[in-house]
């Protein structure tokens, strides 16, 4: 038998392969083009407006003139507090679910709740944050501890915004931490326990450090989600116009996504370049904070080879 295929047969098979590759490439392009288009469009329209003054000056009036400095700082603070709340809670939750929960009905229920929490519309989170954190928790602090009728904690502020956003990103953090813990080779666990380490010692000294890079992936995803959310912070944290920096957790703050929303919907005749400039800064903020965590992650990843 000859190794050379009959001409017609070979042509048809090669043609089929070419068609398949072309289709795959086309579909890939169809996914990439809108993303590039979006970034390109925003950058093209907004870049000219983004300059030092825009980034570092306070807004001068409700008409979107001036800079967006307080919104950048407000978002930065909010994200820091959100991550500080969500990461420990999420990691502890995931450790419980994967290491201690077993297969009890309670764990099944908790897992279902987490999945559903991820599907809750963000405005519902906002309403929940307003009712639970601002009115109930904050209001109770004012009434019972501070005994004041003038709201101190019972009003939107950075703390309640961070709490609400932490609830929003908790499912992401828990899910990625669970996957991170499950990906740690079983042999590490066995090796540790065979040396007389307890389950907790094994988790603390072996499993968590080994899973840290993947856990940080959850942080990256969480930061991205939390930075862009508008509805949850609209009712719990965001100020429309506040040309001063937040002084503490009890302050309302301007926030990038809410500022964009405000300018787009509430400022008549706002220029397109201003809107795009805010969007560009918002996207860059997400990218920059993700890069910081990704660098951190690769630093931890470098230390291991398995």
């Amino acid at each position, binding site marked *: 038998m000859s190794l050379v295929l009959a001409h017609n047969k070979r042509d048809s098979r090669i043609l089929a392969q070419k068609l398949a590759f072309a289709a795959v490439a086309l579909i890939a392009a169809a996914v990439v083009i809108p993303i590039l288009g979006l970034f390109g469009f925003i950058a093209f329209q907004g870049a000219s407006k983004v300059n030092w003054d825009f980034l570092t000056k306070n807004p001068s009036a409700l008409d979107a003139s001036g800079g967006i400095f307080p919104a950048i700082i407000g978002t930065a603070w909010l994200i820091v507090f959100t991550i500080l709340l969500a990461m420990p809670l999420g990691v502890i939750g995931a450790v419980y679910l994967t290491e201690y929960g*077993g*297969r009890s009905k309670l764990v099944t229920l908790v897992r279902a709740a987490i999945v559903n929490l991820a599907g809750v519309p963000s405005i519902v989170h906002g309403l929940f944050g307003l009712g639970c954190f601002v009115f109930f928790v904050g209001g109770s602090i004012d009434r019972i501890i501070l005994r004041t009728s003038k709201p101190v904690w019972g009003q939107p502020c950075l703390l309640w915004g961070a709490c609400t956003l932490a609830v929003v990103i908790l499912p992401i953090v828990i899910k990625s931490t669970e996957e991170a813990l499950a990906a740690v*080779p079983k*042999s*590490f666990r*066995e*090796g*540790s*326990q*065979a*040396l*007389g*380490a*307890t389950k907790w*010692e094994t988790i603390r*000294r*072996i499993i968590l*450090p*080994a899973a840290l890079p993947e856990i940080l992936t959850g942080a990256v995803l969480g930061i991205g989600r939390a930075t862009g959310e508008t509805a949850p912070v609209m009712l719990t944290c965001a100020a429309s116009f506040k040309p001063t920096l937040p002084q503490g957790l009890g302050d309302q703050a301007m926030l990038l996504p809410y500022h964009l929303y405000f300018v787009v919907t509430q400022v008549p005749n706002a220029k397109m370049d201003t809107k795009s400039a805010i969007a560009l800064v918002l996207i860059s903020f997400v990218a920059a904070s993700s890069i910081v965590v990704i660098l951190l992650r690769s630093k931890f990843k470098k*230390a*291991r*080879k*398995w």
Partner: protein
Amino acid sequence: MVKPMPDHPSTTIEPGASIDSEVADMTTQRPSPQPGRGKLSARGVDFFYGSFRALTGVSLEAYSNEITALIGPSGCGKSTFLRVFNRMNDEIPGAKITGKVTLDDEDIYHKSVDVATLRKKIGMVFQKANPFPKSIFENVVYGPRVHGEKNRAVLRDTAEKYLRKAALWDEVKDKLNESAFALSGGQQQRLCIARSLAVEPEVLLMDEPTSALDPNATFKIEELMKELKQDLTVVIVTHNMQQASRVSDKTAFFLLGEMIEHGDTEKIFTVPHDQRTEDYISGRFG
């Protein structure tokens, strides 16, 4: 808590030392294993994974300063049996064990036994070297650290002592802070042995410790085992019958979850009682 008990009967007993007559009898009579006299002892052990019966009525004694080899074809239950001794099977959902297993005559499955303390006394080396994703130094001192040692100088001495014991010191002394994964397979396995020794166990269980290694690395580990039995009770699972005959003092042959035959390695390999043992060691199956 597992109470410390004196090693007997096969630890060397000086002439004239005052010991109870029972033990003295044992030392003179030994080779043939008698129930209840080993450092490590299993009596009538049945083991189930869910409804699957992995071990049926296994009884075995493992003596101090000896290497006991468990041999048999894949799936015969020898690894399961090895893991009975440090209760590694506890972690498997649906696992169930009946029968009695003792260390120095103390029931290791008694509900008052702390598993972590038990595993400190009964160390284990796994089939595939499993160093932690840490430095060589941190791997060796992991056990001592877990058990409360914080003094840096003590830990350093510990690391050197057990790396020397595991015949690895000369190869790694200049790179203690490098990742354990930078070592070769054989070095990693010796590191794991050093790591096990560093918690000062009385028994060392080895689950096919050389099956992933080349002949040279295997040779080093076999030499090491012979050293280790000076201080320890060693139980080794092996697929390699030459290995069993080279290193072990006693051999137990497993088949389909039952222990078919157990005795002096020399006898098992030269004049086995059971036809199935003979068939296996002569390579007719397995």
